[in-house]
């Protein structure tokens, strides 16, 4: 990858992607271009001023975090926690159970070729 591309990617790609996505979403909702001029102004400002681009980046990170928190929370309560019940009934790791000894015999080491 050339250095100019890396610089361009780091500096502007998020701004352009954000504007494109916002334009599509706006058109999808309103079926007109009434707000798109504002989006062009936003795009030009973010391309021109680094502080604006940074602000936009922080905003998107925050939105992303909220999104992932929501999705993970839903996943946790709808799928993960119910499976947790099954896990505790049928597949529970011996280390989590009360035992007179916690030694686990180990006979061999795993292969170096894989990360598991």
């Amino acid at each position, binding site marked *: 990858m050339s250095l100019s591309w890396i610089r361009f990617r780091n500096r502007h790609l998020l701004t352009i992607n954000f504007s494109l996505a916002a334009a599509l979403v706006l058109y999808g909702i309103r079926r007109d271009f009434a707000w798109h001029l504002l989006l062009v102004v936003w795009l030009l400002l973010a391309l021109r001023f680094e502080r604006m681009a940074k602000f936009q980046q922080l905003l998107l990170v925050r939105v992303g975090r909220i999104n992932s928190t929501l999705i993970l929370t839903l996943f946790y309560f709808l799928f*993960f926690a119910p499976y947790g019940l099954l896990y505790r009934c049928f597949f529970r790791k011996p280390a989590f159970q*009360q035992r007179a000894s*916690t030694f686990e015999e*180990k006979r061999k080491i795993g292969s170096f070729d*894989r990360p598991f």
Partner: protein
Amino acid sequence: MASYLLGISCYYHDSAAVLLEDGIVVGAVQEERFTRKKHDASFPARSISYLLRERGVTLREVRAVVYYEKPFLTFERLIETHLEASPFGLRSFLASMPTWMKEKLFLERLLKRELAQLGAGPVPELKFSEHHLSHASSAFFPSPFADAAVLCADGVGEWATTSAWRGQGADLTPLWEIHFPHSLGLFYSTLTAYLGFKVNSGEYKVMGLAPYGKPRFADRMLENLLQLNSDGSFALNLRYFAFTKELQMFSPALEDLFGRRARRPEELLEPFHMDVAASLQLVLERALIPLARELRRQTSATRLCLAGGVALNCVANSKLLLESGFEDLWIQPSAGDAGGALGAALAYYHLAEKGERRVCHGDAQKGSYLGPSFKAVEIESFLRKNNVPFQKLTQEDMLSETSRYLDEGKIIGWFQGRMEFGPRALGHRSILADARGAELQKTLNLKIKFRESFRPFAPVVLAEDAPEIFEFDRPSPYMLFVAAVRPELRVPLAPADRTKFGIDQLNVVRSTYPAITHVDYSARLQTVSRDRNPILAQLLEVYRQRTQSSVLVNTSFNVRGEPIVCTPEDAYRCFRRTEIDVLVLENFIVTKESLPPSNQSEDWRSEFELD
């Protein structure tokens, strides 16, 4: 042509890289020393670049890069722990999952990308060792033993928190493990957090605090927190520990058990906290000794090797040496996760590639002097560039001058040869001082290191003189054992001093070497011999000729929260900021008197997060 293996550890804490040349360690360094961020967990790019540059090779000559653990097994443990805790572990789940899904699950790709970005040649094959196998290898393969039992204990690896192995020649056989959540490392860390110190860095402070207190809570801990089984194994009572489902280590039940809320960081230390620390230390020892005895019974081995973070507890190590039944003990000096990089590479070399092992006299760790060194011309150039007035001396004169300064009670910043690998400064990046000074501990703690006043300092002594001063009959080159000062060197206590308790004991002169004698007469001993550390051994000899004493205070060359200095620039910066009197960079001497007053404000202290 020589062949190379690179071992790396990163992304948890203490990232490091190690280079093996035909199975022999030729370089090892922690990333924190370059980035100046203590316990830095980032990819060890600068460490790898240094190792390759120092050896004059590229990644093309490196056969494989070995990562020190198996990330998928760690992920499996994480998932099962969350399943066990559900539906009460949402916060912990939300905190850990994004990093895993974004990076750690794709670790292979991430590591390859980082290696490619070094621009040091084609990316070699990537291999993975198990976390405890890495620890065990780092303990056994560099040890001086052809046959030994190996015990590893840390917080947690993938599943294992404690593991036992048998090492014979170039082979290492697993015996048993104890799995998460039952962990001596996490037990110690939880109480460390309760005492208001940072997890993964404050544990050694708790160890230093323990002798001030009385172990009056030990029985309560054994009845409630840690169950010791008859076969030597142990189990934690999870009612008191929150690390399986929360973002903190202990549950409110622990505070109820002690009847006190947890100490907040930097709050006043009271006798209660000292008693908890003393009890914790005793309980750790009571848990470790049966484990080691069981291992001795199972293997019939007479030697024991130790690794894992728990093996940095030198008080427990000394108890193991005395009470476990093993005749000899070797501990990996970089016993924490940084040492995992060394163990991963050694494990792959000996166990996968079936590389031959040569058992070395002493050990194969080379004194742990495995990091960067700087030539005289580089040091001189640095000093000239910064207009620092200096004396350039012959080695003989430098030793004589340094010895004179020490005798005058001056504090020396000592920078020689290759930097140490591991958490201890072993006389290449050290602050040295006269151990006979009564006020020295306080001065060093408060004006040089800017750290808690209760913390003890370690002695460095010529190996041949050690038995005359300490009750210890073997070398301790890595500062991993404690030894008591001999009774004949102890000073009888005045009746008023005998009744002192807690931190009041600090200012009592207890021996002819008060700066290194802890309140229980113990000292974390480092012995020095000419074959491992010739310069420091010579300094001690010259100092002995002058003062009839070959004991000095040796503490790491850094301030609180700062990684140990790596370069002459780091050393000079630390020298300027503190009340160190003399800086010795190889054969160059810089004195504080010859410099204009420093115009630095105290703002620099905020550069380093307190540990």
